[in-house]
């Protein structure tokens, strides 16, 4: 066990091969450090699996298994069933990208939730197939440039809307489903800790910017994630048994251009009047989220400004007492 930083478990330790500014690496490090090494981690195929277990080297300091792309939730169901059959209550956590959650992994995920397995499923959503070179997924937002939805004479990028996954998940009437980002650590921490206190299937959807695929400065990953929230494009919400039970209120709504202009994947929208129409469309989608979840007027402990202030105080919640290790 890596004990260089006594305030952290380093379940996902240094030396892995993520790109600089990788939102998924950041998100995974936060999530698994909060859960700790006394858990079993199941990974779908994807960037996280590739950059942490390259060629017989592993960055994981906890038991970790990867099988294939689509089946992480089913493998976790089996691990959980085995542990319970053996009288153990070790937590089981799935980590998958948006491909392994929204698309190819959705059937196994639905089965896992429907059967009530005691598993936390964490989706690190970077809104396309980044590991294979930025192809569109059903999580890719409208009008985004990817290598399989290229803007061209007849196209303004992806034609279809980002799948409303959290609603699909919540429709399973499951105990807990929430969205989070790498931009608001206290919010993410509260949601991971809450999820870990609940039994049964739980789902956490973490927006994780990808400097490579989103084509933004690697130093701006947190800024970009924060703007996704502040524009209303990615609402931070909690759902319990199908009902919305928590919303992070926006201190103010920012126009979507502030989010779009930092990212090359939206650059074509600023080139002509067809692009301008798509920007208005994206603004309308953000406004619809604001109304749907009451993002400007929700009664809530946190708003986006206060969450950022809390994050800037000290270690931002990492100061958990180091676990007594019996290893």
């Amino acid at each position, binding site marked *: 066990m890596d004990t260089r930083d006594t305030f952290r478990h380093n379940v996902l330790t240094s030396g892995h091969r993520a790109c600089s500014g990788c939102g998924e690496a950041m998100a995974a490090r936060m999530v698994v450090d909060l859960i700790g*090494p*006394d*858990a*079993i981690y*199941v*990974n779908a195929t994807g960037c996280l*699996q*590739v950059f942490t*277990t*390259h*060629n*017989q*080297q*592993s960055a*994981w*300091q*906890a*038991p*970790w*298994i*990867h*099988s*294939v792309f*689509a*089946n992480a939730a*089913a*493998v*976790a*169901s*089996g*691990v*959980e*069933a*085995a*542990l*319970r*059959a*053996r009288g153990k209550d*070790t937590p089981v956590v799935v980590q998958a990208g948006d491909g392994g959650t929204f698309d190819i992994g959705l*059937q*196994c995920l*639905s*089965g896992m939730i*429907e*059967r009530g397995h005691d598993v936390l499923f964490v989706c690190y959503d970077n809104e396309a197939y980044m590991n294979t070179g930025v192809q569109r997924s059903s999580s890719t937002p409208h009008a985004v440039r990817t290598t399989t939805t290229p803007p061209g004479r007849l196209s303004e990028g992806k034609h279809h809307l980002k799948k409303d996954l959290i609603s699909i998940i919540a429709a399973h009437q499951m105990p807990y489903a929430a969205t989070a980002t790498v931009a608001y650590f206290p919010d993410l921490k509260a949601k991971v800790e809450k999820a870990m206190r609940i039994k049964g299937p739980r789902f956490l959807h973490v927006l994780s910017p990808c400097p490579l695929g989103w084509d933004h400065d690697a130093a701006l990953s947190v800024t970009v994630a924060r703007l996704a929230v502040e524009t209303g494009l990615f609402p931070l919400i909690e759902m319990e048994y199908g009902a919305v039970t928590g919303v992070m209120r926006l201190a103010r709504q920012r126009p979507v251009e502030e989010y779009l202009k930092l990212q090359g994947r939206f650059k074509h929208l600023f080139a002509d009047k067809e692009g301008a129409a798509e920007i208005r469309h994206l603004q309308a989608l953000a406004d619809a989220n604001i109304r749907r979840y009451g993002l400007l007027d929700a009664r809530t402990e946190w708003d986006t400004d206060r969450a950022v202030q809390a994050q800037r105080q000290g270690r931002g919640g990492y100061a958990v007492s180091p676990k007594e290790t*019996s*290893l």
Partner: protein
Amino acid sequence: MRQLLEGSRAVVEAVRLCRPQVIAAYPITPQTHIIEHLAQFVADGDLPAGFINAESEFGAASVVLGAVAGGARAFTATASQGLLLMTEVLYNIAGMRLPLVMVCANRAVSAPINIFSDHQDSMSVRDAGWVQLYVESNQEAVDTVIQAYRIAETCELPVMVCMDGFFLTHTFEPVEIPEQAAVDEFLPPFHFARTLNPAQPMTLGGGSEPDNYLEFRAAQHQAMEQASEVIAAIDLDFGDHFGRSYGGLAEPYRLEGADTVMVTLGSTMGAVRDAADTLRGNGMPVGAVRLRCFRPFPAQALIHCLAGAKRVVVLEKAFSAGMGGIVSTELRAALHQAGMPIPVESFIGGLGGRDLTPAVIEEIFHLAASGKDFATSRFAGLDTGAMPSIEET
């Protein structure tokens, strides 16, 4: 105790005696009675296991994969399209060297969709890295499931027990169900060395590169080759414990002085035995070999059985379109490698549940023995007039 049991019911008695802790399955004909009986055992408290109704066969295979990695003995069963849907996971289970046992209730593959028995499903995944054992009777299905767990856990390889759909799964036969204490003595408690465990964290299923992938794959092949001896030894040991064994890798029948030898798999062997008896009664020197273990391919055992044969005819219930019979192709390669120039003729039959009667089999014996019209592959009992043409469809 000797009981009259349906094949599916008999096989779940064996599964229960092996004390699986996790069972996952998705229903498909003709596997359904197996999982229904298991679900009832669990519901009645007669089998202390988790029973997971998966959302697909792909999911079912993934659940038992996770269960074994989580330290539990696991079981699943499927057939036909279900086995093909599992394919990606089957390779993965074998590559991770997870000891798992599955029953395949052999059934034809679509299109055209057909629920009846042949071997196209399991033969199609022959390269996945699973041990494949084909059983002739319900008694052998019971005994082979128990052997399979010991083979899997000794070799760290997954084992598929292939039993013909309907011909075995839905047929009642008298079956001897072993005593629990005897099975416990034969099959040690489950232990998997790479169990996911926070006290000893390990990474399972990480990446590999061109500089070591080849070595992983070669080690897997070596383990399969070495499994041949283990499979034969465990069958013999089963005989010592229970008084029944099945010839290990390949089971000979009336080979003394046999010129023409038929090689086949599964329940068809019953009719082959009857046909061979009839022909022997008529003074025709025929014999047979039942290929019990198809993977690993028991080249040495087959060479030993066929050493005295003048010609071999393979009766097989699967084929590779554009190539012909699968077992016959592999057998020819093995005999060629051993410097034994015995002609091997192939008859593909019994597809989609078509009956292979002793009369049909006698005719095949006669055709093969005559040495005339030798063909590397032909279809037994084919009605050429009934074959669809593109214009008709």
